[in-house]
C-alpha cells in the first residue's frame, strides 16, 4: 500500500531549519524574475529600534525599472523600499516541502510570516495607476473599420478542396468486386479487432461495393438493428471466438 509513495527526505527537517514565509506583491515578483547573474535582487535590512524589530527590503537599482505594455518605458519606477510586516504563524503549523521530478524532501518549518509592503511613494502610486488602467481594459475590443473586408470569401467556380476530392474519386474508380475469399479474410481480420462495425466502415476497410459486401455479410454476420450497438454488423455466434483469441477461421468458413 505504501510502496507507491515516495519517501520524504527528512534530513533537512531534522536540522530544525526555520524559514520565513513572505508574501510579496506581484509586481515585485515580476521584477525579481528579471534578475540577472546569481539572482541578487536586493538587500534585506533587519534592525532593532526601540525594542521592536524592523525588517525592510530594498530593491536593487537596476530592477526598479518597470516595463509596462504601452508607450511609456521606464517612466515609472517601482519603489525601492519595502518594509516587512511581521506576523505570527499562529493557528497553523506550516512546513515546507520540495518536489523535484523524482524526490520529495521536507525543507523545514515556517517560523515567521511576513508581508512585503511597498513604501508608499509617489512613484508607487503612479505604478498602481498604470496597473489599474491596464487591468480595466477589456479583453475584447470593438473597432470600426473604414473599408469593408474583401479578402475573404471570394466567389469561386469550384473550391480547391472539392476539386481534389473529385480527382481522387475519379482515379479510384468504382470499387471492384474482389475474390470472395479475400473479402472474407479481410472481414475476419477486421472483426478480430472489433466486434461491431458500421457498414460504412466496412466498406472503407474492404473497398468493396456495398451490395456485394452486404451479401457476404449476410452469410457470416448478423445485423443489430436495436440494442446498445445499434445498426452495426457483427459476426454470427458460430464464427466468434473472442475469449480464446485467435482461431482458425478458415475452418469455420463453409
Amino acid at each position, binding site marked *: 500500500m505504501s510502496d507507491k509513495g515516495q519517501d520524504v527526505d527528512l534530513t533537512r527537517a531534522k536540522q530544525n531549519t526555520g524559514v520565513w514565509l513572505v508574501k510579496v506583491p506581484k509586481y515585485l515578483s515580476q521584477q525579481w524574475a528579471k534578475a540577472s547573474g546569481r539572482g541578487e535582487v536586493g538587500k534585506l535590512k533587519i534592525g*532593532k529600534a526601540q525594542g521592536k524589530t524592523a525588517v525592510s527590503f530594498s530593491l536593487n537599482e537596476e530592477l526598479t525599472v518597470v516595463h509596462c505594455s504601452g508607450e511609456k518605458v521606464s517612466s515609472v519606477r517601482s519603489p525601492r523600499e519595502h518594509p516587512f510586516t511581521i506576523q505570527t504563524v499562529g493557528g497553523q503549523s506550516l512546513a515546507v516541502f520540495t518536489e523535484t521530478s523524482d524526490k520529495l524532501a521536507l525543507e523545514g518549518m515556517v517560523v515567521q510570516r511576513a508581508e512585503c509592503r511597498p513604501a508608499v511613494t509617489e512613484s508607487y502610486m503612479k505604478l498602481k495607476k498604470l496597473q489599474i488602467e491596464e487591468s480595466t481594459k477589456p479583453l475584447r475590443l470593438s473597432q470600426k473599420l473604414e473599408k469593408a473586408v474583401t479578402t475573404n470569401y471570394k466567389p469561386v467556380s469550384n473550391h480547391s478542396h472539392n476539386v481534389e476530392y473529385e480527382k481522387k474519386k475519379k482515379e479510384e474508380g468504382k470499387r471492384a468486386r474482389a475474390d470472395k475469399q479475400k473479402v472474407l479474410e479481410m472481414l475476419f481480420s477486421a472483426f478480430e479487432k472489433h466486434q461491431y462495425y458500421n457498414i460504412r466502415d466496412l466498406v472503407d476497410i474492404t473497398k468493396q461495393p456495398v451490395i456485394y459486401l452486404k451479401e457476404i455479410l449476410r452469410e457470416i454476420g448478423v445485423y443489430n438493428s436495436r440494442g446498445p450497438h445499434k445498426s452495426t454488423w457483427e459476426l454470427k455466434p458460430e464464427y466468434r471466438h473472442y475469449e480464446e483469441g485467435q482461431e482458425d477461421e478458415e475452418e469455420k468458413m463453409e
Partner: protein
Amino acid sequence: MRQQTKEEEFLDANGASCFRLLLNFVINGTSCSAVMTSLGSSSSSTTEYVVRVPKNTSKKYNIMAFNAGDKVSCSTWTQARMERDMSNRRIYGEEETQEGAAGSEFGKKQREEARRKKYGIVTKEFKVEDQPWILKVNGKAGRRFKGLKKGGVTENASYYIFTQSADGAFEAFPVHSWYNFTPQAKHRTLTAEEAEEEWGRRNKVVNHFSIMLQRRLRGQERGEEEEEEGEKGGKKKKKKEGRGGDLRIHDLEDDLEMSSDESDGSNGDDDEAKSKAKKEKGPKGKGKKKKKKDSDLEGFEDSDDGDFEGLEVDYMSDESSSEEEQQEKTKHNKGEDVPKGIDEMSESEEESEEENKNEEDGKEEEEEEDGKKTPVQVEKKKKKDSSGESDSSEDSDIEGEAASALFMKKRTPPKRGGGRGSAGSSRTGSRPGTPSIDNAATSNTLRAAANKLEQGKRQTTVPSTETPAAKRLKMEPSPQSSSGKSTPQPVSGKSTPSSSDVLLTEDAVRRYLIRKPMTTKDLLKKFQTKRTGLSSEQTVNVLAQILKRLNPERKNINDKMHFYLTE
C-alpha cells in the same frame, strides 16, 4: 568581536527564535563579515543581508499546512511517505472499459468525441498536479494525513520562502502551491446512512458506547459470512484484537470501547466486558453470529419514563433469560446505563440466534413506536408470530410475558430485545435447566393472571360497543347475558353506594326523564361511574332495569331515540 557583541545584544533583545537561528548561522559561518554591514548608530542597529532569488527552477517549493490543534511536529517524524491520491481518476479521466475485440465498436472513440463536441460537453481534465496528497508518517502505526490543494494562492500575490544560506545571504524561493493537511481518523466512523439511523434514535439511546461496538460486530459478522467458518477460528481472535489495537484513543467513547474490547482491563466495567468478550469469542467459534447482534443490542435502549404509560403491551420473550433479566432488574437499580448495557449484551450474546429474528425485531420495533396498540391486538399479533415457531415452551413464554409486562412496563425494551423466535430451544440447550424451570413455575401464575385480564377486557369491550345502539331489544339480551356473570355486584352496588353524590335510583332517572327527553347515552352520562361508585357495566345493567320498570315513552329526535316521561 565588536560585531559579536552587537549580535549578542540582538539576542538579548529579541526573543524571536528566527533571529537566533539566523545569527547562529552568522556566527558559525565563515565569511560573514564580507556580507554583513552593520550600520552603527546608537539607538538602533541594523544588519543587512543580501537577498537572492535563485534561478534554477527544478525544485518546486510547496507549503504543507497543518492545523495547530493537531499538534504536528515535524521533528518527531522518523519516517514519512507521501503520494498522490489518485482515487478521483475514474471520475474525471474516463477509463477505457475495453479496447479491441469483444464488445467494442469500430471508431467508437472518435464517435464519442465528436458527439461530445457537438453537444458542447466539456469534461474536466484529470490533472495530477491538482490531486491531493496522502502523507503517512511513521509507518503503518503512525498518523495519516490528507493534503488538499488550496486554490488561488498564486493568483494575486506570490509567496516566497526565505531561507538563510550558509553565507549569510537570504534565498527566496517562490511557493508553487499550498496544501492543507488534515489528519485522517484511524478509528471507525459511521457512514452516512448509519449516522442518520443513529440520529433518528438519539432520544432513546443512552448507551452511546454500544453504537460503535454494534457496528464493529456487524462488520465482523459480514466478514465472517464471506469467509469460510473453519478457516477463521483462530484468526478471528487476532482480527478482533488487531482492530482493538488499531483504535486510537481520541475521546472517551473510543476509550471505553477499546477497554471493553480488549481482554485486559482493570475496572469493573472491564471485568464484565472481559467475560463478554470471552463469551463472544466462544459462540463465534461455534457458529455464525448473525446480524441479529445489532438488533439484539438495539433492544437494550432505555426509554423515558413517560413513553410507555398507558400501554399495556405484552412482549414475547421466548427466551427465559430475558425474563430472568426482568426479574433481576425489578430488584436492581435501573439507573445505571453502562453496566446494564454490558450486562445485557453479555447475556444476549450467549444466545444463539436465527435469521428470522431481524424481521421480528423490526416488527416489534414498529409496534413500540406506534405506541398505542391495545393489548388484545398486540397479543394477537404475537400469537401469530409465535405460531410459526416450533417450540412449545414459547407459548407459555408469551402469556407469561403478557402478565409480566404489566408488572414492569419499563422493562419492555430489553424484553423486546430478548424476545426472539425459536432459538429458545437451542438456547435452553446451551444453558443449564434452571431458567426454564423458573419460567414454568412463574408462567402458571402469570398465565392465570393474564387470562383473567383478557376476560375482563373482553367483557368491557363487548357491552360498550352495544349500548350506543340504544335499541331496547338489544339491551334486553345484553343485560341478561352480562347480568348472569355479574349479578352479585350490581345488587351490592345498589345497596351500598360508597361515598357517591349521585345514586343510580329509579327516582333519579324519573326526574331526569320528566324534565326533558334523553337518550340512553345522556342518562349514562348523568350517572357517571366515578360518582356512583359502580362500574360501567353495572351502571348499564341497573339503568336498563330501571328503564324497564319505568317504561318511558319514546320519541325520535334527530334520528336518536329519546326517552321521556310525563307526570
